[in-house]
């Protein structure tokens, strides 16, 4: 399943070199240098509009850098051919704030959607009629604790359950890196902590790299091994949580950048 890509087995999982993103003249990210190694668990923090979502979108290739380069698993997604880019993106699973599930489909199909990159089209089409690989879906849903919802229509689930379906979708994808863009911003604190623990467990068990953007600083400091702080599109600091002081955090979220 995890076909190793050339140059992907060794070295960093993600590399940004002077990467920046500008949308219609507005700078979302500028001049970012970042290297994330295999198995690292990284939290990206910063105020709203700091560029956290843009960073995640850069890493999975949803957005192309307008300057600099972004390399994921040894592949420069924005320059690679369609086939190579797709093979690389199959190795990267992403979880979103708004779950981004298809509400009209049953849970089993939404989970199987994580597999579509590896399936031929006929299998994908047939699976909509009669779900395929249900045993794997069941195992993934069991892991996230909602195996009883296998046949439920996704629109009937609660927010917390939907986010678990999204995690199960990433589980069946068996990626080498998991990205999460504000995965708990739409959930209440207790559910949020459970989802973050789940993601960390998965990452530790399989040695998967985990990069999560978070609004909530205490969750980030308590549960991750590396903190990347963004403000106004630039990386402010990048260090282990033990080295992040109260003042660092206050500075980061201060209304006006100091100095």
């Amino acid at each position, binding site marked *: 399943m995890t076909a190793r890509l050339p140059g992907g087995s060794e070295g960093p999982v993600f590399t940004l070199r002077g990467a920046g993103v500008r949308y219609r003249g507005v700078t979302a990210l500028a001049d970012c240098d970042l290297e994330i190694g295999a198995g690292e668990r990284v939290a990206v923090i910063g105020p709203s509009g700091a560029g956290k979502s843009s960073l995640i979108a850069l890493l999975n290739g*949803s957005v192309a850098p307008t300057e600099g380069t972004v390399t994921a698993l040894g592949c420069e997604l924005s320059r690679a051919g369609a086939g190579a*880019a797709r093979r690389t993106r199959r190795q*990267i699973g992403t979880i979103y704030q708004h779950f*981004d599930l298809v509400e009209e*489909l049953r849970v089993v199909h939404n989970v199987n959607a994580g597999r*579509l990159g590896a399936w031929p089209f006929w299998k994908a089409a047939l699976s909509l009629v009669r779900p395929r690989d249900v045993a794997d879906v069941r195992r993934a849903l069991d892991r996230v604790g909602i195996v009883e919802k296998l046949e439920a229509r996704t629109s009937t689930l609660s927010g917390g359950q939907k986010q678990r379906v999204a995690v199960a979708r990433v589980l069946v994808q068996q990626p080498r890196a998991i990205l999460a863009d504000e995965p708990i911003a739409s959930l209440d604190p207790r559910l949020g902590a459970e989802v973050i623990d789940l993601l960390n467990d998965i990452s530790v068990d399989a040695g998967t790299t985990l990069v999560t953007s978070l609004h909530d600083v205490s969750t980030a400091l308590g549960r991750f091994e590396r903190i990347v702080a963004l403000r106004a599109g630039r990386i402010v600091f990048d260090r282990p949580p033990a080295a992040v002081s109260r003042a660092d955090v206050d500075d980061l979220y201060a209304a006006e950048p100091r100095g």
Partner: protein
Amino acid sequence: MTDTATPVATPVELREAAGVPVASSRRGGRWWGLVGLVVVAGSVASTGWTQGPLVRPEGFALVSDFLGAALAPRLDADFLGLMASAAVSTVAYAVLGTVLSLVLGLVGGVLCAEVWWLEGRHGAARRRGAAGWVTVRGLLVLPRAIHEVIWGLVLLSVLGLTPLVAVLAIGIPFGAVTAKVFAELLDETPRRAYVAALAAGTPRLAALLYTLMPSAWSDLLSYGFYRFECAIRSAAILGLIGAGGLGFQLALSLQTLDYAEVWTALYALILLSAATDLWSSAVRRRRAAGAGSRDRLITGSLVAGAVLVVGALWWVQLDLSVLVAADTWGLVVQIVGDAWPPELSTSPADLARAALVTVAMSVLAIAIAFLGASVLAFPGASTGARSPARRLTVGLTRTVLVVLRALPPPVWALLFLFVMAPGLLPGAVALGVYTLGVLGRLMTETVENLDRRPQRAMAAHGVARPVVFCYAVVPAAAPRFVAFGLYRWEVTIRETVVVGVVGAGGLGLLLNEQLTAFDYGASLTTLAVIVLLTAVVDATSAGVRRSLR
């Protein structure tokens, strides 16, 4: 109707127009109103009503004979058997044409969708995508601009008298329209799940199937039923030009002036059309109310649809071999050779006159329809009061509207040609009467969906009902009426050509004469003028609607 304000959803049939914005700008409204009046006045003048009698005196005797036969249609077993078999053929053509259009529309819709070509592409790949998108959209403009009857006439010249003509003539233009509508549905569906699937390395087609299709599917289904309703009418019209079925029998009976037979055919047509109309709107209403696949009516309708498709295939026994036959392609090559380069064997002045007649006919038709429908929309809307008298009014008005739209415009035209001097007037009246039926339904639904709170508030402080009507109902309904009227004008200009085919004048008549004279070079010129005129009317209507927004 519930008390709460229901948001006015765009009816699925209006998706063909590029969104119907609601008029609100006062100044723009007055200015366009004036222009509209001048155009209508010009069209009335062009009917030549000052130059001679519009009504044929001898026509009245014919009409009284004709109307007299209404109560004595021919009902013997032989003829009824013939009618039944003709009706089944018409339904079968409509079913197969709809299926073809849905298949073409599904494929074309994906290929016309912005989301397919542009989403998640960057740099050079995005530029290539944009080029592909524009190309496919451009390719679909032509089949959409040509009315199914013209497709029918052209296909008849190539394929001869085969049921395939009717199926293709319905399927091709309907398919192009369906593609446009489906592409818009896909583009309007929230894309986050699609983007997420692409980010996980999912191939585009599989991503589309899992993320956008499940949401767009039910709308496509509703639209399919609406298309079937249109296809029944088209199949009947195609019969008039020789493609068989009810329309063909009707034309035969009209030619022999056998009114008893004509009435049997008309009753059959009205029944068929009204039944599909009711079925289709019931399914669409149920879907709009959010019913899922568990709904009995919808499940039943889907099963019935499948049965109809199989039955139609068995009944028609399509002979697809003509499509690959050497003779057919030889004829195509010959016709294309004759047609290219287009010729001006009809003088430019005659062509211009025919074009003007066509425009005048469409303007008169839409004026008649708009006035009539605006008046009938209010008694036809079932709001509030539930008294028996009120219910009777609603029922009667709706029945009138259903009957008006049950007979396709060319059939109305043939009927009006009995009584009126040939020219653009019978064509305009025929089209106007039919469009009145269609517009009436749209406007009735608009009135029913109006926010009722302002009316209640006014009535609560003692304002008399007629005043409430003038101050709360009319101002809210009028802008939507205008938007619907303009949209139907775009449809009417296409149908003007069809009415022309049966003899009401204009470009349709000209094209029919040229085609029957095998003058393909001149036909191509006329066809080009028709397409151009359609494009001009579409652009004008869209422009007016935009400026009124």
